[in-house]
């Protein structure tokens, strides 16, 4: 718990940097560091698999995608202006934030082992996965065994994304 607050502050600061910096390439690199801070927070929460995926796919691949887009642009396009904030946002965003924070009282306490999310199906997975699937890592067992169709269809989503990229970026006859 001691490391949690500094990491959360780091998270908000890197996100603020990525949003506020006027140079787009710097903003993309700060977004990469935001992903790494997020991976650290997740590792601290016990979600090591999610942290791995975020560090590799989020910080690595997403940064590469952004940079590939920006390397084709000229310098005048990556130096941007900061638009003035409309008054509706001044009123609306704090109001929305207050509403969301007001709802926080109904959420289960942080780290509560009897929260609704933790007593439904996940104890079944934890208790039976070694006997049923012979896999010590429960996340792998659920991803590749109990919910393998979910993962299978997800690869179709990735495939569709790749095809869409290839079709959009195709050069030649128009």
């Amino acid at each position, binding site marked *: 718990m001691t490391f949690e607050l500094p990491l959360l502050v780091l998270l908000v600061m890197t996100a603020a940097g990525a*949003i506020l910096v006027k140079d787009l390439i710097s903003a993309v690199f700060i977004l990469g560091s935001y992903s790494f801070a997020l991976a650290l927070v997740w590792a601290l929460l016990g979600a090591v698999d999610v942290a791995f995926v975020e560090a590799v796919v989020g910080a690595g691949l997403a940064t590469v995608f952004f940079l590939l887009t920006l390397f084709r642009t000229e310098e005048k396009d990556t130096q941007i202006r900061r638009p003035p904030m409309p008054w509706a946002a001044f009123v609306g965003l704090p109001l929305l934030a207050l509403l969301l924070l007001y709802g926080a009282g109904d959420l289960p306490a942080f780290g509560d082992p009897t929260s609704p999310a933790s007593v439904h199906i996940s104890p079944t997975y934890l208790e039976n996965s070694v006997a049923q699937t012979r896999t010590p890592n429960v996340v792998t067992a659920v991803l590749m065994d109990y919910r393998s169709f979910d993962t299978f269809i997800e690869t179709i989503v990735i495939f569709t994304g790749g095809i869409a990229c290839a079709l959009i970026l195709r050069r030649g006859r128009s």
Partner: protein
Amino acid sequence: MVELLQTLWQRPNFVVFVILFLWGFYIMAAHPNFVKKLIGLYIVQTSAIFFLVAFSAKDGAAVPIIISEGVVDAAAYANPLPHVLTVTAIVVQVATLGVSLALVSSIYRKYRSLDEDEVMEQLE
């Protein structure tokens, strides 16, 4: 009011989620630059995933990798289900980000600008 502040102090993750979600959402909707919009989109997506993963934490719980033999105490390991769903979500998020960046790239190729207002001027 004091009660609300106390509940929020016990849930710093939720406060961070609200800040990241609303700020990213505002940038996504209001910023004229396409790449900044996508940075906002990325922050919104990761904040939602962050919210889900925060639910999986249990006090004093270990990483959900079972090395001991015999009966397993479910309260001793973090909830694996949000981890599984969010691993899938992160990969899909980056795939959609790739498609939207490809769209931005093809817009730039045609209009030589990353700014929404400049593109709209050329369209009129």
